[in-house]
């Protein structure tokens, strides 16, 4: 072993971003101090709204601005950078006091409130000034307020009794809940930094970290790219894998896929969580102090042959952390929902377990496992595999199966794009249809394309099965049926109408993006403008649910929630159908007779209806 123990202050700095007990770098305020003290270049991610903010405050008719967002979205960062750009200094910003004042163009004074939660009670009056300002009663002042939504509303509640401030609470609440960025009547703009998508930010975070100057400290380290693979430093290895060979590494693409799917499901991950993720991906190791590697621990880890436990693919899911810590960290909890590692796939598992000896799997084994001697089929893996197959392992294979689990995680992030279908990559996740949903539906439509008719047919079949309770194969029309009683009833056998999937006299079933870029199933019942289409927001969970129902394999793990969602959608469709009937004058009934249509499945599994007439 080497005599000089490596020690990089950059690695120690990066460690501060990770999931350590006191991760000080979670806060912009603290980073600034360390940066000043240690002379380390900060990790800089561009502030996407900065230019707009500056432009606003420099314009002739500027508006006050509220920056909201989750902790870690960059509220303080945005306001500080704005402060500098408008001529404020570091010293002024660092002075105590939460309310900063600066003169800007056209003789106006800008108040910047750094952190609303720290506003002292006697400072509350500033909010009354703010209210006057956005109501246009004070043309000489402007505001830039950083606050998370809860704090802001809480603070506004305190001044809601004041005559000048009355009503602004409701206005701002409305803007927040309805995602309204600008109010037509008040001089106010709302920037929700939580709209910065993680898929946009992740490549930037990775770039900022991997291209950081601090890595130069590794230049002379013996463990960096050691010619003996077993003596290589996992930190450097992880950093290299994260950078990727080309700009588009599989690892990065897959991770962005996952984050984008989370976002479609409505889970937002702020930049601070992405920094935490990246730090953990590079430095995670279950046996390191605080579970994040320091340079001085590397020799020991290499000696103990546990470098594989620093695998970046495990660290993505926070596998280096104790369970409780992992579950309480937003990014790991979110990524954990994909079940990668726990979900089994016959195809992959066979290769992982039997690939070594099975001639049919040998090539795949070579390609997926032997090609990666560092995190793939390393020494430890091979030993455990052998023991497992020969039935001589002391723990009945438990240890080996843990390694298999890690390998599934690695493969999810390394099977090349062109082989995704062949290896059924997405079966390694809880969502077998996620890949299809993302590439063939979500992104295709975002780019102005259309979902294939196969996809629509499958979703329609799923919808029909749920809304009738019958195991139908009907897929060319959407069946609207009721149970007669309430919609919680499992079976709905009274036919009300059917909607053609193909465009036909105003009827159609399509998948479309709305003005916010959300993807919906849109069912149009009529070409009449007074009967707008009924929409169902199509996120991953619903897509998976409907697809699995259509294919006849629904795992119990899908709770009732999707089912309820679909029933609620059906209620809205029935309501719209009622309107159409009124419009078409079809809603009258006769005193002396009535007819109803009862659904039946025919021998082919398609839905038929039988009309029954009753006379009085």
């Amino acid at each position, binding site marked *: 072993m080497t005599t000089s123990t490596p020690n990089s202050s950059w690695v120690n700095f990066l460690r501060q971003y990770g999931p350590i007990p006191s991760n000080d770098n979670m806060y912009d305020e603290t980073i600034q101090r360390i940066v000043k003290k240690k002379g380390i270049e900060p990790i800089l991610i561009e502030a996407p709204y900065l230019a707009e903010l500056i432009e606003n405050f420099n314009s002739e008719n500027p508006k006050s601005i509220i920056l909201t967002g989750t902790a870690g979205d960059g509220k303080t960062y945005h306001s500080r950078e704005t402060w500098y750009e408008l001529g404020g200094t570091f010293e002024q910003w660092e002075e105590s006091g939460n309310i900063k004042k600066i003169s800007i163009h056209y003789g106006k004074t800008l108040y910047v409130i750094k952190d609303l939660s720290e506003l002292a009670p006697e400072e509350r009056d500033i909010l009354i000034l703010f209210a006057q300002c956005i109501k246009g009663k004070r043309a000489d002042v402007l505001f830039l307020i950083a606050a998370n939504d809860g704090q802001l509303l809480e603070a506004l509640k305190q001044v809601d009794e004041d005559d000048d401030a009355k009503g602004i609470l409701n206005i701002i609440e409305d803007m927040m809940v309805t995602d309204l960025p600008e109010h037509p009547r008040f001089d106010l703009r709302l920037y929700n930094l939580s709209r910065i998508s993680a898929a946009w930010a992740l490549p930037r975070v990775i770039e900022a970290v991997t291209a950081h100057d601090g890595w130069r400290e590794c230049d002379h380290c013996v463990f960096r790219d050691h010619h003996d693979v077993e003596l290589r430093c996992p930190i450097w290895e992880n950093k290299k894998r994260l950078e990727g060979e080309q700009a588009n590494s599989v690892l990065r693409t897959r991770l962005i896929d996952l984050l984008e799917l989370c976002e479609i499901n*409505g889970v937002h991950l702020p930049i601070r969580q992405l920094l935490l993720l990246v730090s953990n991906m590079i430095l995670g190791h279950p046996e390191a102090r605080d579970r994040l590697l320091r340079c001085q621990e590397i020799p020991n880890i290499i000696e103990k042959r546990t470098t594989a436990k620093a695998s970046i693919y495990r660290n993505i899911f926070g596998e280096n952390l104790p369970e409780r810590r992992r579950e309480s960290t937003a990014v790991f909890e979110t990524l954990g929902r994909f079940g990668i590692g726990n979900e089994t796939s016959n195809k992959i598992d066979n290769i992982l377990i039997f690939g070594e000896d099975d001639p049919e799997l040998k090539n795949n084994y070579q390609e997926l496992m032997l090609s990666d001697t560092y995190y793939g089929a390393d020494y430890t893996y091979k030993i455990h595999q052998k023991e497992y197959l020969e039935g001589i392992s002391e723990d009945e294979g438990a240890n080996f199966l843990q390694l298999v689990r890690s390998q599934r995680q690695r493969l999810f992030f390394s099977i090349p794009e062109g082989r995704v279908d062949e290896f059924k990559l997405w079966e390694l996740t809880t969502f077998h249809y996620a890949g299809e949903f993302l590439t063939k539906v979500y992104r295709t439509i975002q780019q102005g394309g259309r979902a294939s008719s196969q996809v629509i047919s499958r979703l329609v079949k799923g919808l029909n099965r749920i809304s009738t309770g019958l195991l139908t194969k009907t897929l060319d029309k959407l069946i609207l049926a009721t149970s007669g009683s309430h919609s919680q009833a499992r079976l709905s056998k*009274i036919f009300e109408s059917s909607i053609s999937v193909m465009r036909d006299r105003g009827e159609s079933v399509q998948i479309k993006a709305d003005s916010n870029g959300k993807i919906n199933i849109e069912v149009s019942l009529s070409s009449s403008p007074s009967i707008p289409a009924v929409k169902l927001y199509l996120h991953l969970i619903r897509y998976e649910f409907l697809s699995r129902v259509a294919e006849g394999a629904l795992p119990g793990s899908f709770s009732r*929630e999707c089912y309820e969602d679909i029933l609620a959608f059906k209620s*809205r469709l029935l309501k*719209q159908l009622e309107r159409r009937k009124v419009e078409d004058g079809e809603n009258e009934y006769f005193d002396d007779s009535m007819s109803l249509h009862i659904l039946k499945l025919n021998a082919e599994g398609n839905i038929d209806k039988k009309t029954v*007439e009753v006379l009085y």
Partner: protein
Amino acid sequence: MRAVLERPAKIDSDMWVDEAIWGHRLYDEQTPWLCFMEFLNVLNAEMHAARALKETSPNTLSYSPQQRLYLRNILFNNPRMRVIEREFRNDNHAQWEKWIETMGADSAGIQTPNFSYLQSRFSSFEDFIDVVEFLSSSTIEGENNKRWSSLFIFPFGPDCLYEDLNVKGTNISQDRRFFARTGELLYLMLARSGKGEELLKHFEDRILNNDSKFNRLVSAIQPDVELSHSSSIKREGAYLPYLDLPEYKAIAEDWIRLFECNIPTYDVIPHLINVMGIHMLIYSLNRAKEVLGQSDKATFVLEIVSPKKTVVRELSADSFYENNLLSRSAVERYIRQVSETNEWQSAINSNELLECRDILKKKFEWPKKSKEDDYDFDSPQELLNALLENAINRHNQHLNKFHNVWSREIGLSSRRGSRRYRYAPQDLLIKSLVLCVVPSRMEFQDFLEELFLKYGFIIGDKQASSYINSGRADQEAFSENASRLEQRLSSMGLLKRLSDGCAYVENPFASREELNND
């Protein structure tokens, strides 16, 4: 103590203890659905008598429910229908003939049964079967093992309502097996809520509407004689002990809120039942607490189900257990109170056993005249103990189980993942609560507070302060419990999240909202 209304002149039961505290009566075997059905029967009958939800003098309810034995025989006592259809396949005439003959012989409860009116109403026997099978598929509470005369069709409208009966041959008796008057109590509560008129309008529009499609379908299989309202029978004897309680108004207001939501027609019913169930539980616990002299309102620690065992689960199970004991303790206390009266003391002092018995008789209607001889005791204490034992035994049979059965039936309690029952609300119940509490949208923390104020539900840390301050739980345990609720509401599409701990609960059926987007 609250003023208690005079008890009925004639009392059939063995004693008047449970009834004195809770009314005549809360009954475990009458599930919330059946309570609602009985209530609809009362309401519909009183609508015909033009005095619905009006009580001129307390506890004089006398109403005429319908029996609809043709309808019930066709739907629930008609096992041969399919067999006959197959036996005479392709011969519509023979099918009808055979079936009418069979029903003439096999139906029960009808003096001179004649089902021939049906033939002219349907174009074929098969159509008739389809209608019958469809209607019987909407039996409430689904498939169950109850006798056919205790099965009920979904309340599509007034023509679907009839009372629970015991039918043996042509003999009909009302044994109050499943319509055990809990629905009558509910009716009286609402009549005393001060909101009767408003409620009535909603019922007339939404549920007791003759013209609704499926009500008409149900009427199509009944003979004309069953379709005209009959006032030949009278049901009496309902007793609700208190003239005015905040709980009465609370049920009525929640029901009105539900009706005012833009919920598709019959979908409102499960929510009405859930919320009514909660209020009946609160009513039962609060009455017990009053007897016990506890001035605080009933509370419930709700665990929002977590995959792992938590402190909140323990506390929730404790809270369930404590509430479950209340009614029995109340019965004990109620009876023992008599020994503190001067009357009793002086009877003891004068060593007059007969006088003691008379006191018990006066106060508790016990023992019955016919059973006086069964109780031959040496001391007043023994006599009192005998009453106590009798009363507890009687209480244990039904009322003591009310809390357990009803909380489970409405999805408030469960034993999932645990050996003990606890309060762990199901999704549908949570949705009912949102519809009742949230007019259109409400900040999540306010929602939790509102649930506490209205129903005594303890979910978040702010509401759990008594548990946290006494060291039985830490704040984190309850705030995690609240965030599990937040998560669940969000996945049910009932919550909109803003940043960091700020979220709004949204009522998807808020009347001003357009329902075109979720």
